[in-house]
């Protein structure tokens, strides 16, 4: 009598018997197909939206639109930069003009003060003889 312990083939046959394929559960294929259909329905809207760009004409149109937007944005940015530079230069000129005007005013003020301080010293000399008489 052959035993599983003495004959390696017996063990292997027993393993083949133990591990033989089993039937999948009933409705297995139907369940898989239902899940596949559900998954396709989920991904379909995204696919249809993106499929717009699969047409060459629309792809080029989108590319042209994006390029135009980028070019217009660049021009607008350069324009703003130029305006800002002009504003800065005008500000510098104004500051210089104000500084010059301030200096001139300071000079005029000092002149006026000088004149004012020299005038009161001469007046008492003129009055003294008149009061004595």
């Amino acid at each position, binding site marked *: 009598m052959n035993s599983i312990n003495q004959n390696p083939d017996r063990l292997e046959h027993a393993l*083949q018997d*133990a*591990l033989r394929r089993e039937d999948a559960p009933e409705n297995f294929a139907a*369940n898989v197909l239902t899940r596949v259909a559900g998954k396709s329905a989920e991904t379909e809207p995204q696919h249809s939206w993106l499929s717009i760009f699969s047409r060459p004409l629309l792809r080029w149109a989108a590319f042209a639109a994006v390029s135009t937007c980028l070019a217009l944005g660049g021009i607008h940015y350069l324009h703003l930069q130029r305006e800002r530079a002009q504003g800065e230069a005008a500000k510098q000129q104004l500051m210089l003009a104000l500084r010059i005007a301030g200096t001139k005013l300071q000079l005029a003020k000092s002149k006026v003060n000088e004149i004012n301080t020299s005038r009161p010293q001469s007046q008492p000399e003129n009055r003294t003889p008149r009061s004595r008489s």
Partner: protein
Amino acid sequence: MAALPAADRAPAIAGTDFADIVRRYQSMVFSIARHFVGDPSSAEELAQDVFLQLHSALDDLESDEHIKFWLRKVTAHRCIDHRRRRRPPQVSIEDAPEPSAPGNAGDPLLARRLRQYVASLPEKPRLVMILRYQEDMFPEDIAEVLSMPLATVKSHLQRSLAMLREKVTRTMGEVTL
């Protein structure tokens, strides 16, 4: 019904209905998962996931043999992922419950015990045993499917068989077939 897109498809599977592919391989995929995972509902869910993945990957598969190879490979990897995610208490073959059956048990009991012992093997040797004895695959093919050196596959087979033989001898005595 989800039919395969005919474009860019080899003649072997061009025009084949996806449902036909599912019906043709459902037993193979479900059984690998069932023998590995043990729990029938988890095995069914895992097998369904494999076919869902197949539906997305069909454009890259060129023939019926390619589909079969792909299914075995993906099922094996998903089995390992499934086991690692859930990580049940690992039962070594030495700790597997001892049967209370008499030594001259009949085939159904022996088959049940063998499935139990195979289920208690570590992940890789278990997959090797399932592919060898369920799918009747050669070690070279198993090595390719599992991306494993041939020597490792042979080593897993020899050691697992030796352990099973010892376990059967210890628990069931001289089993006659």
